[in-house]
Structure formats: C-alpha cells, structure tokens
C-alpha cells in the first residue's frame, strides 16, 4: 500500500515528506499507533500503525474518507482513547490522558457550555485549567474573541448564536489557552458553504498570527489544501498511512491548487482514477 502511494507521488508535483522540514524536536509525534474500537460486533481495528510528526508552527491535516480513523487518531492524541499499541508523545513526553496542553475544537455545536456566555465559555478554561485571575482571564478571553471577530456577542448565550458564531467562540476558547497543539475535529463540517469558507479564512489568519501548531481532521480535500502545510493521507478500514505531502504555500484557486486537488484525490481513490480512463 505504502509503496504504491510513494511511487504515485514521485511522478507528480507535490513533494513527499515523511519527516517535517525542521530538525528540532517535534511538538507532537506518534509511533506505530494502532487503535481499536469497541463496536457492536466486538472489537475492530480502526487505525493501523500510523506514525505522525508535527513540528512547531506546522499545520498537519489528517485527510481520508469516512472510516479511515482520522477522528479516532485525534481523540487518542487528545487523550480520550488509549492506543492498543504504539506511542503518542507531546514534546517528547508520553501522553497518558486528556489535558489542557492539547485543546480540542469539536464539530458539534454543543461543545459550548450552554449556561455560560460567549465570554464565560472562553474564560472558563483560563480560570479552571490555567488558574488565571478573573481580570487576566477576562482580558485574554476578550482579546481572543476579538481576534475571531466576535466583539459584540460577548454577553450572549450559545443558544443566541448562529452555528458559525458558536464555532468561532470554540476556536477563541481553544486559542486563548495557547495549547502546545490545537486539535480540530472537522470543526466546519456542520456549517453551510458560505460560512465555512469565511471561517476557514479566518482560522488561517488567527492561527498564523498566534503561530499555533495545528492538527486538523477533515474529509474535504479542498479544506485540507487550504488549511494544511502538510497532509497525512489515510486509507479506510482500517486507517493506514497512504502518503504524507508537503502542501505549504499553495495559493487557493490557482492552477497549482487545482492540480494538487486532483493528485490528492487520485492518491486517496486510486481505483477511481482507473475507472475514469
């Protein structure tokens, strides 16, 4: 599987990059990660032998069809799910459970606590996990909400916000924590197309400003190319590494971008390529 993928990449324009360009210690790495899920008919292997490395300031996108275990990998990195085998390390130290050094932005809108205002939601982890004073927490929360463009909704409760605004609050809450790595699990999948593209652009801007390190999960090739500096492609049932591609500096809607989309598609679905011919 891996061999064929490597071969396919070499004849195309995207550069294969199994290791990050920087030589420094990766912020996050997994080695030989396998994950098992308890399903209705007993256990099944969801992820098989996946190795990832994310360098400081990098934006790695896990991309694959549904059933490739990309969300499961993210949950394992977050510490919600323990590996069947292999290791997950954060700055060289093994991950043993959830913690505020890896903040997750989920797809579901109910990730905001409904009994807290937008501001209260962003302040909550700053007070509880970072143990900041109320004044400091308030200042940093207001600052984070301003960066995602939500200065006027500070005192609104989640049910008064649109889906896009809720995701903005969730992004602000995660960014304000300044985690070692920001984990995003298809955060825009439940949004309409217009809102999604605005949030993608705004996310890129705030993540670049904050020089945040990002692990982003999506099944959209376009979104992966927009957000990522590197893509990690996975096959389905179980999730195995297909290829790792360097996609930094692609200009959206440029010919190179369109070409990259086709290439990534062909890597993910090699049989579809054959059927087209």
């Amino acid at each position: 599987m891996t061999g064929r993928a490597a071969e396919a990449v070499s004849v195309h324009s995207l550069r294969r990059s199994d290791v990050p360009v920087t030589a420094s210690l990766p912020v996050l790495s997994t080695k030989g990660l396998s994950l098992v899920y308890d399903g209705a008919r007993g256990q099944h292997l969801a992820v098989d032998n996946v190795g990832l490395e994310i360098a400081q300031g990098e934006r790695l996108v896990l991309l694959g069809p549904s059933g490739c275990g990309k969300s499961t990998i993210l949950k394992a990195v977050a510490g919600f799910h323990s590996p069947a085998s292999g290791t997950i390390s954060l700055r060289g130290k093994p991950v043993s459970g959830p913690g505020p050094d890896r903040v997750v932005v989920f797809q579901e809108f109910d990730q905001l606590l409904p009994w807290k205002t937008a501001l209260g939601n962003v302040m909550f982890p700053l007070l509880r996990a970072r143990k900041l004073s109320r004044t400091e927490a308030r200042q940093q929360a207001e600052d984070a909400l301003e960066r995602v463009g939500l200065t006027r909704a500070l005192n609104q409760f989640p049910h008064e916000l649109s889906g896009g605004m809720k995701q903005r609050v969730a992004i602000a809450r995660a960014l304000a924590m300044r985690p070692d790595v920001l984990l995003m699990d298809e955060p825009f999948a439940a949004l309409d197309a217009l809102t999604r593209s605005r949030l993608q652009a705004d996310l890129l801007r705030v993540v670049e400003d904050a020089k945040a390190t990002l692990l982003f999960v999506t099944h959209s090739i376009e979104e992966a190319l927009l957000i990522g500096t590197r893509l990690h492609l996975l096959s389905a049932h179980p999730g195995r590494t297909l290829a790792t591609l360097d996609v930094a500096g692609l200009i959206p809607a440029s010919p190179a971008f369109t070409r990259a989309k086709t290439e990534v598609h062909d890597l993910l679905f090699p049989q579809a390529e054959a059927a087209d011919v």
Partner: protein
Amino acid sequence: MSDLPIVLRPARIAHLWENQIVRRLVVLVLLGILWELVALWQNNPIMLPRLSTTLGALVEAFRDDRLLGAAWVSLSVLLKGYGLALSIALVLVALAAANRFARDALQTLTAMFNPLPAIALLPLALLWFGLNESSLIFVLCHAVIWPFALAALQGFESVPETQRLVGRNYGLRGPAFVALILAPAALPSLLSGLKIGWAFAWRTLIAAELVFGVSSGSGGLGWFIYRNRNELYTDKVFAGLLVVILIGLIVELGVFRTIENRTVRRWGMQK
C-alpha cells in the same frame, strides 16, 4: 361614552388577550362563576358551600381559627422532610455518578420504591417512629428521594458527550467535573426532579395529616380540613383546600418558575 379614557376598545381587548396571565385569570373567574352558580342551584351549604361563603370562611379562619398557623405547621414539616430528603438523595446520586455498583443499586431501589405511594408506608412509619413528626418526615423522605434520584440520574446520563469531553479536555475530574460540568448540564432534569419531589411531598403530607393530624402540639392543614369536616363546617373545608392549592401555586410559580427563568430558560436549555 367613547371619549372616556378607560373604555376598553376592541383593539385593546385583543391585545390583553395575548397576555397569558390575563387568559389564566379569565379561566379562574369562569371557574368561580361556575362554582357560585352550581352552589346556588344546589342550595345545600353542607355539601357545597358558595364561593362567596367559602371566601368569607377563609378570611374568618385566618383571623380566628389559626389557619395561617396550621399552614405554617404543614410547611415547616414539609421543609424539614424535603431538605433532609434532598440531602440524602444528593449523596446517593453523587455516589451513583462516581461508582457503577452504586448506580446499579440506586437504579434498582428507585425502580422498586418510586411506584410505591409514600402514604402506604405511613402505618409502618407510625409503628416504627410513633405518632409524631418523625413518622411524617420518614414518609416525606420516601416521597421525595426516589423521584428526585430518578430525574437526577436521567439528567446525568443525558449530558451531551461533547460537553463531557470538553470538561475532561480542561483537566476536570471527580467533584470538580460533577460540579462544573455534569450538574449544570443536567440542571433541567435536576429542577424537574425538585418540582416533582415538591409536589409529591406536598400531597403526601396533606394526606398523612388527614390520617393523623396532631403533630408538635398543633395540627397542620390536613388536620384543619379533617377537623372541620367532622364538625360539618364545609365552607372551612373548602377554605383549607384553597390554601393547599394556593401554597402549591405560589411555590410552583414563585419559586420554581423564577429559578427556571433565571437559569435553564435563559440559557436555552429548556423552552
């Protein structure tokens, strides 16, 4: 006529009709008129006194017959029982939230005891605790603990997975996790458990007081009703019933509705 400012124009009446409180008051007034008419037609004050007579008896009972005192006796017993029951229920639910065996145990107990009317335990309570307030408090606890525990358990179970993960993501565990994530997320169910518990306790208490009235020297509302029925003061029986209804309404609308408006409704967790 039409130049008088107080005249109700059709538009203004239609506007008033939009107000729920106005519509409810109209229902009450209609019920009152119906009562008065039926009583007039029956013309038998011992079976059914008129509303006006009942209201007169109510005022008189407040003034001369210590009705307020009786209401206070009932309420104070109720508050003691309710408070004790909630403390016990909270401990049980907290244990159940933390431990699987405790959860199984509580679920079994709830399934067994929730359908058992609390008043059915009164004979046993009298045997164990004697003819005093302890017996009442025992049946009150039984009336409150199980429905509240049932609602609380269901509330905790229905907390969205994402909110649990968010709490764990920020490193919350144990009591902090329960207090900061689970309890507020389950608040709609907890409040409905409190309401059901209150309603059950109130009914059970009045029923228990009917069976044996005198506690701590003076009787409660149930005893007031029972005593007046024996003496065929039917208007005072109705006056006592009105007070039972009134207290129920005040607690429902004044206390629980206020809490709901300031919490779960404001947060959009309940319509």
